[in-house]
């Protein structure tokens, strides 16, 4: 099989699966099985690429996580007609996302623009369900499309800056994070959970590509924006009473740390990939867990529900473990990745470290608050409680296990090979004893 075909196969399977899904959309159970099979097929196609010489071009470990996230986010969904559109869109977004990672130059940017257009359409379609961030999100992604058009029409450094702006919308960085918040807080079904990983992965992929072409002024500003975003995201998360908005701002804080690190070190080590993947998967898990509550009681304010530890013990245990992972406690992947970032050999000592540690500390505050409100206290007696179903339980358990493995597995697993990274982007491994 030709090389390009091998590379494009996972994306093609997902897009074809999404298109075929329309044919059986009237039967939710069959559609659910179909979308699950397609995401598995896409994962298998990617797995076949594991030893392929073109593996680095695809950022393999990150790309492989996308069908896994799609599969797990779909697995726990009840076969209900309201969810059909979200399932098909999950496959479509997965295909377009994988395509944007594979495609070089114009093709990659075009697919990225298509993804943004799809997001705009989705936000508009579900505006009735959505939150106050809706129009900001639509506007931001609209600007993103214009940026990509500009990038296609210009040469570096203008094109690089334009792509960087789009990356800051996908891998959220203040002040361009409104689209990400809107997507996580406003979209229905499993889409927020899936997008919590897909968008940052695409943003990170783009960032690595444009980093060497950025003007020095922009590079100097990025660490400052990263630190400001980390603090801003943490403060905003503290003030939220809606779970999805809280998690979106928490991610803004965590991903801003990644921006700061990449901008300071000018490097993408396996630890960077580990951190990105772990933060994305932990949020994916928390959003899926929250979906289980939404499916039962609607999108409630945090103040309206409590004491689930006694009445939904399986949910409580998994939600707690996911929250621990998300707040950066060991032995989960977020902690391992975070330590990897801070112990990077090329990271200089600076005041930025203090801000980053405080942002990390703040996560313990707002995520514990979320955990405590939801799980502890006296439960309401006017609600009927039903613990997680088997598929919901399996999806969340799988995510917890993946995060656990990430926390202890060799970090070499997250190496993409490094050859595809531009010359300016160095890699750096931690030596416990240099």
């Amino acid at each position, binding site marked *: 099989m030709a090389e390009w075909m091998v590379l494009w196969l996972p994306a093609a399977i997902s897009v074809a699966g999404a298109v075929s899904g329309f044919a059986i959309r009237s039967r939710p159970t069959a559609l659910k099985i179909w979308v699950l099979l397609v995401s598995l097929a896409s994962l298998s196609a990617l797995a076949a690429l594991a030893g392929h010489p073109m593996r680095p071009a695809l950022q393999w470990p990150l790309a492989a996580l996308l069908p896994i996230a799609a599969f797990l986010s779909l697995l726990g969904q009840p076969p209900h007609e309201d969810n059909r559109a979200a399932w098909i869109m999950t496959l479509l977004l997965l295909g377009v996302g994988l395509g944007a990672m594979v495609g070089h130059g114009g093709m990659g940017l075009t697919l990225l623009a298509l993804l943004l257009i799809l997001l705009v359409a989705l936000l508009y379609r579900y505006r009735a369900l959505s939150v106050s961030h809706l129009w900001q999100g639509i506007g931001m992604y609209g600007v993103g499309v214009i940026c990509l058009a500009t990038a296609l029409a210009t040469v570096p450094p203008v094109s690089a800056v334009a792509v960087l702006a789009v990356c800051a919308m996908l891998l959220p960085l203040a002040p361009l994070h409104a689209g990400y918040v809107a997507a996580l807080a406003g979209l229905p079904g499993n889409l927020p959970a899936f997008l919590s990983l897909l968008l940052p992965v695409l943003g990170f992929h783009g960032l690595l590509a444009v980093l060497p072409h950025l003007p020095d002024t922009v590079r100097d500003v990025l660490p400052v924006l990263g630190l400001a975003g980390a603090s801003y995201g943490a403060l905003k998360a503290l003030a939220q009473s809606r779970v999805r908005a809280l998690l979106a701002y928490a991610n803004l804080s965590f991903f801003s740390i990644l921006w700061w690190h990449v901008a300071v070190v000018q490097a993408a080590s396996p630890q960077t990939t580990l951190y990105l993947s772990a933060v994305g998967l932990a949020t994916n898990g928390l959003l899926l867990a929250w979906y289980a509550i939404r499916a039962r009681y609607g999108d409630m304010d945090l103040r309206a529900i409590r004491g689930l530890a006694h009445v939904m013990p399986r949910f409580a245990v998994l939600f707690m473990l996911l929250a621990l992972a998300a707040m950066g406690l060991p*032995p989960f992947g977020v902690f391992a990745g975070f330590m990897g970032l801070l112990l990077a050999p090329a990271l200089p000592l600076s005041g930025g470290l203090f801000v980053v540690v405080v942002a990390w500390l703040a996560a313990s505050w707002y995520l514990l608050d979320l955990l405590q409100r939801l799980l502890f206290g006296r439960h309401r007696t006017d609600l009927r409680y039903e613990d997680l179903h088997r598929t919901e339980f399996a999806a969340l358990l799988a995510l917890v296990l993946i995060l656990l493995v990430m926390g202890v597995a060799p970090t070499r697993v997250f190496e993409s090979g490094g050859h595809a990274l531009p010359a300016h982007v160095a890699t750096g491994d931690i030596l416990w004893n*240099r």
Partner: protein
Amino acid sequence: MSYLIVVPLLPLLAALFVWVTGPRLRDRGARLGVLPVVAAFAGAVVTLVLVSSQGPISVRLYEPGAAANLALPIGFYFDRLSAVMMTLIALVGTIIYLYSTGYMYQDRGYHRYLGLIAFTTFVLLCMVSSANLMMLFVFWQILSWLLFLLAHNHTHTATLEGAYKTFTLLRVGDAAFLAGIVLAHTLYGTIEFQELFVRAAATPVILSPLPGLEISGATAVTLLIFVGAMSKSAQFPIHIWLPSSLYAPTPVHALLHAGIINAGGFLLNRLAPLYGLSSTTLHVVFVVGMLTAVLGASMMLVQNDIKKTLGFSTIGQMGYMIMECGLGAFALAVFHLIAHGLFKATVFLNCGNVIHQVRQEPASPHARHAVEEHELPRLTWATGFLTTLLLPLVILLVTHGVLRIPLLESQGTVIFLFFIWITSSQAILTLTRLRAVASWKVSVAMLLTLLFVVFTYLFAAEAFTHFLYPDPREVAFYFQAAALPGRLFDGLVIGTTLLTVLGWVYLYAQAHGRTMPIPAWVQALRVRLYMLLMNRLYIDGLHARLGQWIMRAAHSLDKRSSGRLW
């Protein structure tokens, strides 16, 4: 010797066994769960014997010099310090587990609770046997989380608030500890204990965090890590989580006060060679420890709740332990934490029994108004006063004549001996209050106590120091590093001596119904101080205010940004 890594893992087996089989095997499963914990204790004793005779044993599942092959470096290091701590933890863990099987029998979360006790024992054992800073930090943080979970009754609002406060405050310490690790790795390129000590000693680094401010690398690293130790060992001003956790089940308190809270003292001992490089940090440690000891003991005196009283007593003792580290007496701190741990575990477990008994017997506590003797027998007082005053002289003679220690050249020895005197005085002061006892008996008890304390400190503590730190040069190096400026040191010794003697005089005067000429401003100060201590220096309020201020800032930011693109 790699089989030794099974020892810390055994309680994990117990925890998993109880959690998995709990609902099916019920009480039988819970009781069977004690076997691995007992086996861990036996293993800890074997480890202690092995490392005492054969030296430290290291088991690493990673290659320190190679590019990080594991996301977290997992390794175990068994030396005398870790083996002593493991024995203490496993012993206390076993006792508390066994006690809990009866105490918590009717509780709804019986199996969850027992599993958590076993899991906490596992985490503590792994923490004290960690081969490097990173692994120690991993278990250090898990411990912070376990303290939140061990609050147990999460439907009770006050319990929940206490647990929240505990976790958030412990995380402040964790964050500082993290910063210390990052700084150590950046400056010295390693997180391996022995390598870190060697490099830090060989390559002095000067940092300039602010213009005009210079600080040595070792000082910066040790200060940051000390904040971590402060949080776990409830040092002023991050001590407020300990009294707030009083709603947890009583056996949890026994484990907390006998095992978990010693983590700070252990950490300072583990990193003693690094702390020995920074006199500044040791002085800070001394001041923080002294403040905590004084304030903890003072606040203890005005509490009206048995658990809170014991909580503040622990804070005071932890301050004492940290102060010992700050004076360079690292081994003495371990000796202290073992003695205090065993004592406090006993007291708490008994306290649980008393509470149960009182709840079951409406007539308890009995309102017996024993006839109190207002007159303190002269003989009792004279014995106490004379022995207290004579003791320093006896010690001086013994140390000069028998042990041949050059007192004036060694602050460390003076401190050591001073502790003996203070502790004996305290014990004798307590005994003089046993007024119902015949005076001759009290006098004999005083003398026996005196002999016991002197014997324990002079010989047992000295032997323990030699056991933990066999090289006398190392011990001398720590004392040297912790040495205070001569005048300050003399002032402290003289001041404390005067206070102790004044205590005796005041006690005598009060016991004989005599009034002492105390100035009015001292009386007023006493009342204010009482109020201040009663309200725990208003630190809880300040903490709450800080939290409210941050939340107000967050809400204000959220409100202002809600209508904008960002």
